């Protein structure tokens, strides 16, 4: 039972981060029908920028408390990610908006490779230690242990997601985003500036990715140039699981995927009598993806048709 609660909590932590990343994918996909392959790499850049800022501040003002450093790291990471994401959108996606669908996908892969190599050149190819800035004393909860960082990850993700829901459902920008997702041309006729809405979507997605990147690095204590790729891929899976283009779907999908992975990794050894171990964790995400796409291509909460072609 303790294993179960522990794995559920781990799953929630992992799942919150997947949800945050998945939101970036799902919002962009909802509007442009484009898998933004570079999203995971934006996350990497966010985490590494935060790390550099924190190390710089630690060097300049050795006495600063941990939470100030984390906040400063986030405040540095978010603008960097937003600018990066806007540049990507402007250079690589906007000129191809009316091209065949394969074209933007390939530029997206290209952009992802370019960002990875640039990150490798700037920050090196080694795993970097992300300092433990928040108290590491374990918190006992129903027989399982948590850390302050993990509790914060869950709470902060919940707050951000509620904020995002309010933004999308209650504000003028949110209405414009929904209208553009529905039909960009008609939205344009109604006075919405689609370029602005698309840029805003990328900016929001990038800020969420920056947040998720800092969380990932803070939770696991490491950062490196490739750290965003696999979480990015899994978050896309989460977005598909929830129903791509659907914002609550991305949140639900992320949490579910996190839980499935954590529980799967925790129990696969017992279930298979030790034949398969927890290093098959990464297989779950892809197996789920394939299953969902075969049996319910519109995802759990999705109403849209999976493929509009």
């Amino acid at each position: 039972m303790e294993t179960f609660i522990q794995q559920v909590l781990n799953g929630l932590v992992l799942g919150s981060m997947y949800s945050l990343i998945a939101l970036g994918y799902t919002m962009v996909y909802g509007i442009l029908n484009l898998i933004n392959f570079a999203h995971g790499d934006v996350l990497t850049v966010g985490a590494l920028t935060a790390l550099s800022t924190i190390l710089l501040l630690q060097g300049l003002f050795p006495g600063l408390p941990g939470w100030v450093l984390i906040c400063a790291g986030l405040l540095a990471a978010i603008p960097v990610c937003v600018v990066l994401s806007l540049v990507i959108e402007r250079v690589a996606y906007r000129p191809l908006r009316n091209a065949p669908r394969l074209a933007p996908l390939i530029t997206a892969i290209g952009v992802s490779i370019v960002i990875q190599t640039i990150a490798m050149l700037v920050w090196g190819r080694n795993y970097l230690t992300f300092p433990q800035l928040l108290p590491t004393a374990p918190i006992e909860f129903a027989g399982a242990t948590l850390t302050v960082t993990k509790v914060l990850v869950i709470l902060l993700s919940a707050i951000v997601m509620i904020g995002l829901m309010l933004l999308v459902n209650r504000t003028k920008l949110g209405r414009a985003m929904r209208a553009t997702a529905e039909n960009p041309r008609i939205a344009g006729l109604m006075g919405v500036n689609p370029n602005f809405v698309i840029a805003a979507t990328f900016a929001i997605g990038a800020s969420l990715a920056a947040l998720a990147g800092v969380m990932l690095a803070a939770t696991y204590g490491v950062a490196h140039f490739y750290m965003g790729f696999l979480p990015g891929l899994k978050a896309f899976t989460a977005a598909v699981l929830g129903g791509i283009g659907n914002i609550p779907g991305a949140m639900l999908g992320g949490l579910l995927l996190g839980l499935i992975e954590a529980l799967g990794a925790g129990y696969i050894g017992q279930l298979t009598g030790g034949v398969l171990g927890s290093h098959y964790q990464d297989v779950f995400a892809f197996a789920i993806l394939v299953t969902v796409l075969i049996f319910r291509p519109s995802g759990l909460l999705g109403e849209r048709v999976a493929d509009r072609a």
Partner: protein
Amino acid sequence: MRVLLPRLSQNRAAVWIAIVLVAAVLLVLPFVVGLLGNAWVRALAFACLYILLALGLNIVVGFAGLLDLGYIAFYAVGAYMYALLASPHLTSTFPWIAQMFPSGLHNAIWVVIPLGAGIAALFGILLGAPVLKLRGDYLAIVTLGFGEIVRIFINNLNAPVNITNGPQGITLIDPISFGSISLAKTQHILGITFPSVHLYYYLFLVLTLIAIVICVRLQDSRLGRAWMAIREDEIAAKAMGINVRNVKLLAFSLGATFGGVSGAMFSAFQGFVSPESFVLNESIIVLAMVVLGGLGHIPGVVLGAVLLSMFPELLRHTVVPVQTFLFGHVVIDAEVLRMMLYGLAMVIIMLYRPKGLWPAPEHGVNPASRAVAQRA
């Protein structure tokens, strides 16, 4: 030969002269390039393997329009199949196999190539069957997932039963030999000395030429036309009586065979395989070859494969000296620069030459319908 050189086909003599000239260039090439060092001949041999891969992927992506981001899995399947069948790994792990083959597992190329093709085709069908209904980006992500699953399994199947030897990979793989002539040794034929890499180059060249002929014949066949019909409009193709399911499965399995054969050859050439050779980046590089060369156009694909596979060799010989000359030390190593340039090339070519460097000539497409297709 008419299909290979349509424009020259009126003049039989010109066709034969062209063929003889190309053949002579290809035969002499390793000796000319070899003057720069055997590393270049090795790069040529690898270029042939990449042409095989690119042609196979071109069937799936270029002809049938199914974007496959996990293509390298078939390469891995072929490579591991050869590695297991022609190395001491299985006999030393399983005593019962050692009893069955007292002299160890060794297989001739006549067994390996069809077997590699067959097993890869089987994997192609296994992958293809569940994803038949998916299109576009979804298919890309699922195939990417399959590619990763295959790699994760190869990486971890050293326990509880040691099949793939995990991350260490399989070593001591037999080189290819024809009877008593082993391609791993320098051979003297008719007074000419052929180093091992040259021999492999000739073998791979022959396979590549066979693959090109197969692809050209496939392209104009009933099946090839069915693939292109599906690529352009699946519903219309179905309405014209094409069995979409079977035709798609054929695309996956035939595409996979090329990957399987190429993988088996890679394994024999290297003498060593490990999961590291089959990462996602390799799939992307092969895709880049197909896309940059000219999606669906065989000469373009061959050009793309040759350019992109020879390019790292060129970088290796230029980047380091140029940087030491300019800065006094190496700032960016060749491997990193290569990936960055691949990425940039994918972006720039999609923006400015979306049909690739050597695109298929457009015939039978009237401007009006193209405008409609672009707007959709």
